[in-house]
């Protein structure tokens, strides 16, 4: 049973004017079997949290801890974090021209599983997972994310989630830019991944994905930290009243 612990995490982004603090003391624990939704206004630092945990070089951790099953995540390289069981479904998946999706998926699965998957079962596995997400087979031969629509990119992020089966998945605005059908398909993919062994940190601006993926916990993120936590009912409150109260409070606090 896995646990991701984020303890008093502070992080800065490097800008032309020097480092700019974004995360200001994030505390959060995600256990296997739990789905946590992080909701917050634009610019509150939600995506920074996701990228900081994944190890994006643009963000510098200034203090705090991130532990996966007690192991220090921040001391690991980006690929080590992934192999340790962390996964980040990105808001803007990166295009990698020249590398086919098939080649990429197999390389990733080989790295994560520690050995190359057996070819016959692998092909079946990939085809099945693609079909579950309504991805046509021709995508296997296309370059990673190159020329994909927003919805196609998100489907492929969830495809990777399905194939790599991480301990803890961080989904960064996986719902953004999706039409209703795509949102349903992608949500179903996430729900298939949900299990007592897996934890999810779902980052979103809107509540509509929570109609499809019911969270166990909802956290409001503002001013670079979690300002309020509750159950699914907190999302309803946000739906009704918006983020304004939290934005004001965060502004007053900083």
């Amino acid at each position, binding site marked *: 049973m896995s646990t991701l612990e984020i303890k008093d995490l502070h992080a800065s982004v490097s800008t032309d004017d020097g480092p700019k603090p974004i995360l200001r003391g994030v505390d959060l624990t995600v256990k296997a079997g739990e789905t946590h939704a992080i909701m917050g206004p634009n610019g509150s630092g939600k995506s920074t949290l996701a990228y900081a945990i994944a190890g994006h070089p643009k963000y510098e951790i200034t203090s705090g801890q991130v532990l996966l099953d007690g192991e220090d995540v921040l001391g690991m390289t980006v*690929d080590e974090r992934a192999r340790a069981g962390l996964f980040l479904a*990105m808001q803007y998946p990166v295009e990698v021209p020249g590398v086919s999706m098939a080649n990429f998926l197999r390389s990733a699965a080989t790295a994560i599983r520690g050995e190359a998957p057996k070819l016959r079962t692998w092909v079946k596995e990939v085809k099945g997972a693609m079909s579950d997400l309504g991805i046509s087979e021709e995508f296997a031969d296309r370059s990673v994310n190159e020329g994909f629509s927003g919805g196609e990119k998100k489907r492929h992020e969830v495809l990777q989630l399905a194939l790599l089966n991480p301990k803890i998945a961080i989904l960064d605005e996986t719902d953004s830019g999706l039409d209703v059908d795509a949102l349903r398909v992608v949500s179903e993919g996430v729900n298939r991944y949900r299990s007592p062994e897996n934890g999810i940190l779902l980052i979103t601006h809107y509540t509509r994905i929570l109609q499809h993926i019911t969270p166990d916990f909802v956290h409001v993120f503002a001013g670079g930290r979690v300002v309020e936590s509750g159950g699914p009912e907190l999302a309803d409150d946000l739906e009704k009243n918006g983020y304004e109260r939290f934005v004001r409070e965060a502004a007053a606090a900083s």
Partner: protein
Amino acid sequence: MTTPEVAGLAPELAGAKEGQGEKPVLSAGERFTSYDVEAFEVPGGREENWRFTPLKRLRGLHDGSAALDGRAPVTVTAAEGVTVETVGRDDARIGEGGTPADRVAAQAWSAFTEATVVTFDGTPAPLTITIEGPGAGATAAGHLQLRTTPFAEATVVLEHRGSGVLADNLEVVLADSSRLTVVVTEEWADDAVHVTAQHLSVGRDATLKVVSVSLGGDLVRVSPTVTYRAPGGDVELVGLGYADAGQHLEQRLLVDHAVPHCKSNVLYKNALQGRAGTTDAHTVWIGDVLIQAAAENTETFEFNRNLVLTEHARADSVPNLEIETGEIVSAGHASATGRFDDEQLFYLQSRGIPQDQARRLVVRAFFGEILQRIPTHGPGGLPDLRERLEAAIEAELAVTGV
């Protein structure tokens, strides 16, 4: 400028004629050629034809100061369907492939003492020819001609290895209805300089495929010129180059469509990987395609892609398409230079793929498209070569520490 602008005028061919000055010529078809080195002025480095080439590193090939007294041995073994001859300068066949179009090619032509002529007849087994550099500090001029008889079908690998400086001309003369695949590898030692002109002459209904692989050497400049002697010719030129820190790899192509119903397809890919504190890794690709007025029903496409893996690298790419008739099937050209950037690296790593593997994945995929053009099966198949070149590319990656 008083010279009228012509659509598609090849800028680097400006001044190719008349002493290679800066006066533009109107067309790639008007490019000056001569067997005589003295007919060309010594380039100063500002000419379009030479402006990308670091003349200081040419070891005197361009200004007459190279002694050219070394020997670059050609190793080839005759086999069934393959005739190997060593001939003098006066052999009637020499020059059938084409005429030098720059001073170094003319220098080599003026200096060589004997040429190797390899003739393919029928359907011989794949042949390997090795050209060894003259050795560190030495300079040499060479001449090789590959020719086919009508209806011949052959595959030949031309490997360049060793140290030293070599200027040479390669003539490839395809008889009517013959098919030839040539794989040219530049696998030189770090010190080597190779400036080579390839004269590719294609007969009626003949098919030529050239796969160029540039890996080694300090400076390697390859200038292929394709001419069609009669209709029905089909030419595919593909190439890859991997430029490390300090390396200069240059490819200058001219495909001259002067007769109807011919095809050409050009695809070159270069990867560059430099290092701080040394000369930039540099690739240059010049692709000129000329469709002359008589060349109706031409079908042509050319594409250059460059992958810049690191800082301290520079890729120059100049595709030119010059069309003098509208009665063609298709004509296209494209060039794209992309960077392997931190975001791509982060994305691949975030899926568990270690940094070195991520870089290899990208380079391997990038070059795969070229290497897969090397036939591995069938009568002209080269099962081991592709594997060997893949290994050589891996070794390059390892040397540069990625």
